[in-house]
């Protein structure tokens, strides 16, 4: 049941609604396909993909924090070819565009992944993960340095005709500087925020809870930080923004759109409620009625100041 008031069109992603599961919180869709029809989603962001197989970090890989969680999965994934051959065909069974999240240690690795995936039909666009805090070479150096971010963006733009979204790290002094740098390097859109770097200690052992020591903070706890960064970035650019960070409800989505997001992604909330995405989509329709809004995009205007 498609609600035309919810449709949004972003570069490469023609979405039935502005809601997609966030990268790394939905694997490649198989698990959640047991719960509902993935065609209901606006898009699917797949797990961060590297050129070869990665086995990730030691366990424990997650820890709980107040209204949030830390993860240090370490980019475990089967590698670009396996994703192309075994995972993306599964998602092609559904009428939903894929946002292919790409990670790497070097610009060459990013390029290799994109070369492997660029011709896959259901890949609508790429999302450059330049902000994974959980592996030493997870791209975080690209995420904190405007110049490195811009160079990487320009390099991958050269090898794909599909739109490229750059996923920004919140662990920076000035997120707008990175946003502007990747915009001028040709980014077609922005995703924010990735996780905040955090840590928990175990008072029983006197050691960090996570085997990797530090991890990425996600969940409702980070929502105010995400809203602030989206708002700040929206002041300086008209690029489409996929907003994320702590979204659990349709009201949260509305907050993100007021702040300046064009679409949103739901990460951690999938874990507490496997039906998070479809129920947010349903609730959004009801909210539009209640607020007497004709199209979801109209909410966003208030945040748009450029």
């Amino acid at each position, binding site marked *: 049941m498609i609600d035309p008031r919810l449709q949004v069109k972003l570069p490469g992603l023609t979405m039935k609604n502005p809601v997609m599961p966030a990268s*790394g*919180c*939905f*694997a490649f869709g*198989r*698990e*959640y396909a*047991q*719960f509902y029809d993935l065609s209901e989603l606006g898009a699917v962001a797949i*797990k961060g993909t590297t050129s070869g197989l990665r*086995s*990730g970090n030691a*366990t*424990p*890989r*997650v*820890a*709980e924090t*107040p*209204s*949030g*969680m830390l*993860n240090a*999965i370490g980019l*475990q994934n089967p590698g670009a070819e396996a994703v192309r051959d075994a995972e993306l065909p599964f998602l092609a069974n559904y009428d939903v565009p894929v946002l292919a999240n790409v990670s790497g240690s070097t610009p060459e690795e990013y390029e290799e992944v994109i070369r492997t995936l660029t011709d896959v039909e259901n890949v609508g666009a790429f999302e450059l993960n330049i902000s994974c805090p959980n592996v030493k070479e997870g791209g975080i150096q690209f995420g904190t340095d405007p110049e490195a971010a811009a160079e990487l963006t320009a390099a991958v733009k050269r090898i794909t005709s599909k739109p490229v979204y750059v996923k920004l790290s919140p662990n920076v002094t000035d997120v707008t500087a990175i946003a502007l740098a990747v915009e001028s390097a040709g980014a077609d859109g922005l995703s924010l925020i990735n996780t905040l770097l955090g840590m928990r200690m175990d008072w029983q052992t006197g050691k960090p809870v996570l085997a990797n020591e530090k991890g990425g903070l996600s*969940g*409702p706890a980070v929502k105010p930080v995400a809203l602030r960064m989206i708002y700040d970035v929206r002041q300086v650019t008209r690029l489409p923004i996929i907003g994320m960070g702590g979204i659990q409800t349709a009201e949260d989505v509305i907050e993100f759109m007021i702040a300046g997001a064009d679409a949103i992604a739901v990460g*951690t909330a*999938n*874990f*507490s*409620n*496997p*039906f998070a995405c479809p129920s947010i989509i349903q609730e959004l329709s009801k909210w539009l009625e209640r607020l007497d809004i004709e199209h979801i995009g109209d909410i966003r205007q208030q945040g748009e100041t450029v």
Partner: protein
Amino acid sequence: MRNEMMTVAKNQEIAANTYELTLSGALVNDISKAGTFLHIEVPGGDLVLRRPISIASVDPVAGTCTLVYKEMGEGTKRLARCRPGDLLAVLGPLGNTGFPVESPQAEDHVLLIGGGVGVPPLYYAAYELAKRKVTFTVILGFQTKAAVFYEEQFRYLPGSEVQIMTDDGSYGGQGTVIDALKTRTDRPAWLFSCGPRGMLRALEIVSAQPGTKGYVSLEERMGCGVGACLACVCETADRSSYRKICQDGPVFAFKEVLL
């Protein structure tokens, strides 16, 4: 597998800080394997991760299932406060593998070894073995007398032989389940176990012999519980790849995984 608001039918302390929780709901009809678990949302809003708890028994007629959990941190503390009639969001049953209770022949002897909160899934397995008229020995380890639970329930099952060990010797034999195992001369055809990682590692060494088919139910911190987040992995024994405990397990052959 479904996500359901289940009703708390009973929730009572049965040993020191250890609670028996009986839940009713349609989800009960889906439960079929000893070793699978439920992923329970803790009331409150500030705890974003669900708590995985093994299924200890099922009563299909009453439409209920029972869990036994220990109060460890904030989540189980809040579960302990739930009252009959309260609703809990429960996802499950989760896990694709249970203990292979269908496999032992009537003449096979099965050994079940559990420590602390590793005991509950073994009770479900023992119950199924008893139903199939397989005889089995249960060795359960607890810290101290006050922590002992389900001894009577195990003894009540036909074909069971039960041995309790306590670390401080305040009840049953003194020592660990490993100490108890070392004194045994018989070699079981099957070994089902669940408990702290240290106990399982010791068990793997003690019981590693050609004639025994050993199975272990593993625990790890979980995110999604359904195989999507890759939080709960363990390495395969040959270190060539990973298994997801929530989805590929939680029960594995000893020889499949690296403890």
